[in-house]
């Protein structure tokens, strides 16, 4: 019995699972990517583009799938899952490398002196208790003096010497110092910008002193003209006035003027609305002036409640 016919038809139905190429395909299973480095066959490309592309794609997918099936698998509810290896292709970063942090003052010093960084453990060996204790934090070694039930007092200590209080204050001072240095490092890392100068109390104080110094310098009888100059004393510079350019388009100026006018109008309305001027029929101010014969509301009130005769004489003289 000749089965070659059947075999041939079967082979035609199921194309071979192997891919024959001059240069083998690059398969990166980690990214599920296949790269074909072979040059394009010009004849098949020109004659039938669609078929050429399809055969290229088939080869690629075939090699990817065959390499997928060689991978170790893990069973799951949805059937076996292949475990992908880490990708081989090096993709470029999407973002630029982060900038290195500016060194702190200590790091600068250590680099200059060649001091190596030592990592301290979070735990420390306690000889007396014969166990590892926290360096800081809960039951920390740095709080030992504060927490132990009996503490040695130096011989020449005061009567009200409290060793626990002293130890606590020392610790708090260390924390405060560290925090201050940290803030200083942050400020230095920010650079000498105006915002830092505004928030930094030291800079603010500096500004205040400069201000009071400059006002003191012009607070003499000659406004500082004939005072003795100290060495290295600089001339006081005032704030320079700044004006718009003369050559700018008149259109801008017009718009600014119109905006100013409308603002002035609304301001006038607001100020007018502020003091309630009654119902508008009677001019209250004028009515008071008329009734009091020009002396004002207070005088009128005093007169109506039986005021002094002295006032009346004054009014007559007028």
């Amino acid at each position, binding site marked *: 019995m000749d089965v070659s016919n059947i075999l041939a038809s079967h082979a035609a139905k199921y194309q071979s699972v192997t891919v024959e190429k001059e240069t083998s395909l690059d398969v990166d299973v980690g990214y599920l990517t296949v790269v074909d480095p072979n040059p394009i066959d010009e004849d098949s490309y020109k004659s039938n583009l669609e078929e050429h592309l399809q055969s290229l794609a088939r080869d690629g997918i075939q090699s990817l799938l065959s390499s997928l099936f060689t991978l170790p698998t893990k069973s799951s509810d949805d059937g076996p899952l292949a475990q992908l290896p880490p990708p081989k292709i090096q993709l470029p970063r999407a973002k630029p490398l982060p900038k290195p942090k500016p060194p702190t003052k200590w790091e600068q010093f250590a680099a200059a002196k060649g001091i190596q960084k030592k990592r301290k453990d979070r735990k420390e060996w306690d000889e007396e208790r014969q166990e590892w204790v926290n360096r800081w934090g809960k039951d920390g070694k740095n709080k030992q003096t504060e927490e132990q039930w009996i503490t040695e007092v130096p011989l020449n200590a005061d009567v009200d010497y409290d060793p626990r209080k002293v130890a606590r204050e020392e610790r708090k001072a260390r924390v405060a110092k560290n925090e201050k240095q940290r803030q200083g490092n942050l400020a230095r890392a920010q650079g000498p910008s105006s915002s830092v100068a505004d928030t930094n109390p030291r800079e603010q104080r500096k500004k205040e002193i400069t201000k009071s110094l400059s006002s003191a310098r012009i607070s003499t009888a000659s406004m500082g003209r004939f005072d003795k100059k100290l060495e290295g004393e600089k001339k006081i510079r005032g704030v320079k006035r700044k004006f718009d*350019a*003369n*050559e700018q388009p*008149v259109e801008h*100026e*017009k718009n600014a*003027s*119109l905006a100013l006018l409308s603002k*002035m109008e609304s301001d006038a309305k607001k100020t007018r609305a502020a003091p309630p001027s009654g119902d508008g029929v009677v001019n209250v101010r004028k009515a008071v002036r008329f009734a009091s014969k020009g002396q004002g509301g207070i005088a009128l009130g005093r007169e109506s409640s039986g005021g002094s005769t002295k006032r009346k004489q004054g009014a007559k003289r007028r």
Partner: protein
Amino acid sequence: MRPLTEDESKTLFTKLTNYIGKNLIHLIDRKDEPYCFRLHKDRVYYVSESSMRLGSSIARPNLVSLGTCFGKFSKSGKFKLHISSLDYIAQYAKYKVWIKPNGEMPFLYGNHVVKAHLGRITEDTPEHQGLVVFSMSDVPLGFGVTARSTVDTRKMDPTSIIVFHQADVGEYLRDEDTLF
């Protein structure tokens, strides 16, 4: 020569608004040609854009005047309106007063307008309102500020002051050397 700062503009506009009210917009936003206010040696000039561009090429000490002088800023920052602005103010004036021919001369010599010389006045003029003084033949003579509102003037005696003198065309002769 430079544009006015915002404070200066505000002072100027408040003064002008006292005389011409909302018509000030017609001075700023002109249909025919763009005009602008320029400050030169404390004086405010109302000048067309083309003249301003020409004038900007002249050195500051050499530039005597340009456009129409509207007035000057005093050292304390107040604005004083000059008679040279009368052309524009008379054109847009909101409140007006006409004085009789026998009152023209006293006013042009710098005196206040008394009631005896009052010919006509705009109805319902409030107190302390800037207005333009005209002769009976509608020739603008100057401007001033009302002493009383129109209603109050009726009861007053003929010698009492109605309009306080601010500027008059006689200044063209009297203050010739300092005016521009």
